[in-house]
């Protein structure tokens, strides 16, 4: 009896009482909550346009600034997710909505949103007068625009590719749209969505740095954060402060990676339908920690029950009725579609009309041609960059990819570097240019590719690492020379991966041109000839028609080159060079 009781008490105790791991986890959770609360109070502090915000270069304030930046990133991420869930799903489920949403997102993706920032700030300040909320929202909006399109498009594509048998099973068992969304659509797209989010994050860091210090109509608005710290350091020409900021950024990215993304990715493994051979499981110490705790595990179970109830909320339940006839909309499917198409077409026509009218009203033909010329200059930069970058990184990537041991070390480092906002490094390059009196038009060019070259590198690594071993052995067996081996095996083999990387890199380079073609250090400002510098210049002046013209031309160029060069290459890669 006693033994029984003891063992009972033992299991009882073991089940309910916290262990050491609980303590560690508890501190972590409490710490994060406290920091966030402090931050939220700062955000809603009163503010007037024109009021100067002092940014101290004292490194002891830097962690505080970093936290503000992180918080902005986090909020933007939540909004991006909301946007993704609503519009991605809507487009995937409704043919009519799809016809409007998807092209819109596609265009938004290629718009260099940095140029729009000043417009957004004015709008948000009007929305929240007398409060920091205005500029805060504008910064968050800028980050949002760097992530949301990519995430929503990816989500839309995966939701549409949910296997038809799962859709049929859901129909057969009468799942309501709400249950279907949470039980099928979201889990199915989760691994892809997380991967996309991680990639978008790096764009996000870039934008948060750029958007914390913005000039609107010759007035600089500084939001406390790493970006504005850098801006302050640049105008004070303080190299030490720049170094602090770079180090801080590295730490922040590391923490984000360890506390947020690694745990999520490790957790999302279970949503993959099949383990693809050779793929390594990603482990996370944080997930391991929470697995070892007791209280938090019980909490996790409670969360599962809560999630369960959330999915099964009564108001979203399917109605137990049997449809007696075909719904009205479906019976008149073609008529409804026709009307919808006409509406869309009219809308497009009206906007084209407005645009043409607007452009002719404000600009002479020579101005337009000049801006187009600037666009071609920037395009030339992008092309030269992508070629140089390929010449450097393709051999390196192949070398690494063919050696699994090296790849295991290099891959995460490359991903980490990709997340680092390279605009933090601009001052260093600027100092070098000034020091050695280099040609501005040539030497600011590398700035544009600094952040995006990693996409080429890790895509090539990925491609080289999946080159079939037997093919490499055949090449050895036939003792192919180096050149023949590259031409016949390696280059065709990595081509699809390389193209994917190159397309991403080119998109990023266009966007970066806005901040990279006009850089400053202290009182010196270096301006290169190019469309990016043009947009930046008029943004500082607050001249909206010129900003609009610049951005319009840039959008057209990006779309034009995409259709003309990259899309055909992509199709070729898909059809001709795909390994079976």
């Amino acid at each position, binding site marked *: 009896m006693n033994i029984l009781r003891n063992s009972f008490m033992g299991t009882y105790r073991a089940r309910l009482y916290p262990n050491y791991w609980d303590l560690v986890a508890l501190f972590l959770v409490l710490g994060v909550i406290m920091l966030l609360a402090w931050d939220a109070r700062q955000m809603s502090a009163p503010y007037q346009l024109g009021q100067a915000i002092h940014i101290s270069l004292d490194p002891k304030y830097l962690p505080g600034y970093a936290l503000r930046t992180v918080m902005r990133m986090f909020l933007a991420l939540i909004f991006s997710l909301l946007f993704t869930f609503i519009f991605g799903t809507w487009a995937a489920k409704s043919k009519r909505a799809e016809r409007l949403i998807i092209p819109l997102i596609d265009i938004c993706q290629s718009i260099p949103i940095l140029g729009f920032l000043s417009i957004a700030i004015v709008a948000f300040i009007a929305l929240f007068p007398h409060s920091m909320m205005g500029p805060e929202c504008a910064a968050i909006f800028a980050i949002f625009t760097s992530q949301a399109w990519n995430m929503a498009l990816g989500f839309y594509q995966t939701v549409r590719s949910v*296997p038809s*048998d*799962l859709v*049929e*099973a859901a*129909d*057969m*068992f*009468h*799942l*309501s749209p709400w*249950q279907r969304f949470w*039980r*099928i659509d979201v*889990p*199915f797209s*989760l691994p892809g969505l997380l991967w996309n989010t991680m990639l978008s994050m790096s764009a996000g860091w870039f934008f948060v740095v750029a958007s914390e210090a913005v000039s609107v109509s010759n007035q600089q608005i500084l939001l406390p954060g790493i970006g504005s710290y850098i801006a302050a350091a640049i105008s004070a020409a303080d190299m030490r402060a720049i170094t602090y900021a770079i180090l801080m950024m590295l730490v922040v990215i590391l923490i984000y990676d360890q506390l947020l993304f690694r745990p999520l990715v490790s957790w999302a493994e*279970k*949503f*993959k*339908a*099949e*383990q693809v051979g050779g793929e390594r499981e990603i482990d996370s110490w944080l997930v391991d920690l929470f697995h070892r705790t007791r209280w938090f595990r019980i909490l996790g179970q409670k969360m599962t*029950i809560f999630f*369960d*109830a959330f*999915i*099964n909320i*009564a108001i979203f*339940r*399917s109605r*137990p009725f*049997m*449809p*007696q*006839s*075909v719904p009205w909309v479906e019976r008149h499917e073609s008529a409804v579609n026709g009307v919808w198409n006409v509406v869309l077409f009219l809308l497009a026509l009206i906007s084209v009309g407005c645009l043409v009218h607007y452009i002719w009203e404000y600009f002479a033909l020579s101005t337009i041609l000049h801006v187009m010329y600037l666009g071609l200059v920037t395009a030339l930069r992008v092309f030269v960059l992508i070629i140089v970058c390929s010449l450097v990184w393709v051999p390196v990537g192949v070398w690494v990819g063919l050696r699994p041991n090296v790849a295991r070390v290099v891959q995460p480092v490359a991903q980490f570097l990709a997340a680092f906002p390279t605009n933090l490094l601009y001052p260093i390059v600027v100092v070098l240019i000034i020091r050695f009196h280099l040609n501005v038009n040539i030497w600011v060019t590398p700035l544009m590719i600094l952040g995006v070259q990693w996409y080429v590198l890790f895509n090539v690594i990925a491609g080289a690492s999946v080159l079939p071993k037997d093919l490499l052995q055949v090449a050895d067996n036939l003792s192919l020379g180096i050149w023949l081996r590259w031409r016949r095996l390696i280059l065709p083999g990595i081509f699809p991966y390389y193209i994917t990387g190159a397309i991403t890199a080119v998109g990023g380079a266009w966007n970066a041109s806005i901040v990279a073609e006009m850089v400053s250090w202290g009182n010196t400002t270096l301006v290169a000839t190019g469309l990016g510098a043009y947009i930046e210049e008029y943004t500082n002046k607050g001249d909206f028609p010129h900003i609009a013209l610049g951005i319009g031309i840039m959008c057209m160029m990006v779309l034009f080159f995409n259709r003309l060069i990259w899309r055909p290459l992509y199709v070729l890669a898909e059809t*001709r060079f795909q390994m079976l």
Partner: protein
Amino acid sequence: MQENEQPIIEVVNVEKHFKIGDRQELLVLHEVNFRMNPGEIVAILGKSGSGKSTLLRIIAGLVRPSEGTIYYRGKAVHGPVRGISMVFQSFALLPWLTVLQNVELGLEALGIDRDERRERALKAIDTIGLDGFESAFPKELSGGMRQRVGFARALVVNPDILLMDEPFSALDVLTADNLKTDLLDLWESKKTGINGIIFVTHNIEEAVLLADRIIVFNSNPGSIRGELKVPLAHPRSELDPRFRNQIDRVYTMMTTKIQEIGEAQHGGHAPIDIGYRLPEASVAEFTGLLETLNAPENDGKMDLPVVADTLMLDIDELFPLTELLEILHFAKVSKGDIAITEEGKAFVEADILERKKIFLRHLKKYVPLARYISEQLNHHPRHRALEENFISLLEDYLTEKEAERVLHTVIEWGRYAELFAYDYNSGVLSLENPN
């Protein structure tokens, strides 16, 4: 099985066509009529692409018929109906849910509360023999166990009737046999409350083993060729001569009709037109079949079930071959038998080069599409043509996917016969050989 009882399912004049292109429509189901009575297991047997799966989905309310109506217990069906459950060929399990959660899915949709859900799901898991796997994820299970989860999920909602779409075709033979036996035991024990089963299959043995009634389907368009009652009591044994006899009856029914039409006209396969849905058969395969037929022990004539057994082909693999042999006049199929013709004998006894010549002759004579392509190439000044031209021609008769499939089948035959050459990258057909 009383005749005067109200049928559970009644299929009345169902037609289904899909849009292909702007004006063309492809007929997949044509005038399908049948009824299922309480207590019956009905098999819908047909070749792949005969529209049988589409019919099952129409009965399930997943696909709307273009014409005609489905009645479930006297009421017209316009969408998925409560009371009808389905088991899928690919299992259709959610990989991120455990076995238990997968089984609970249908109950969740019914709004049943958590405790009752769990209880009923556990009971269903118990019944289907999945005890101990409740917390496993589908990817940890073998195919057979996964399909058991599929069955448990379908049964837990207490369905009135069960629909099954080739439920055993993704499983290996032993696993499938095991699952079939368990399913029959469950059905015989009346524990599940199911009043009828309709299943789709292309496996004749499976249909004879399980069904009380077999509905044999025609292809192009899918329609009912005939119906067979299987009067054997369960459990049935494949070794039982009466069982073999039933299988012969099915083969006979599946092959007789084509023969009758053919005999009326040519004494072989009826001539086909240019848009004919040519069977997917390779030269190597049909040569192998001819060699088997011509072997001394078979003397040029075999029973189709025996052919299927010896060469280990199911009807989806066997019938395209026999069809091609008939089209080319290399063999004749009648009443469940296949016999080699004189031309077939000449072909199989020739050497490689001679075979190519005979094949070329027959291809040009009996396959209008091959003849047409060769004529087009001859007329063209540079003897070249794009494959797209032929695909769009075929799309007047077939779906886009089928058009491509048929053209590539003909291209393979044409290359073997050295009738024309084909360049994969440019999609160009030409008369000359590549340099």
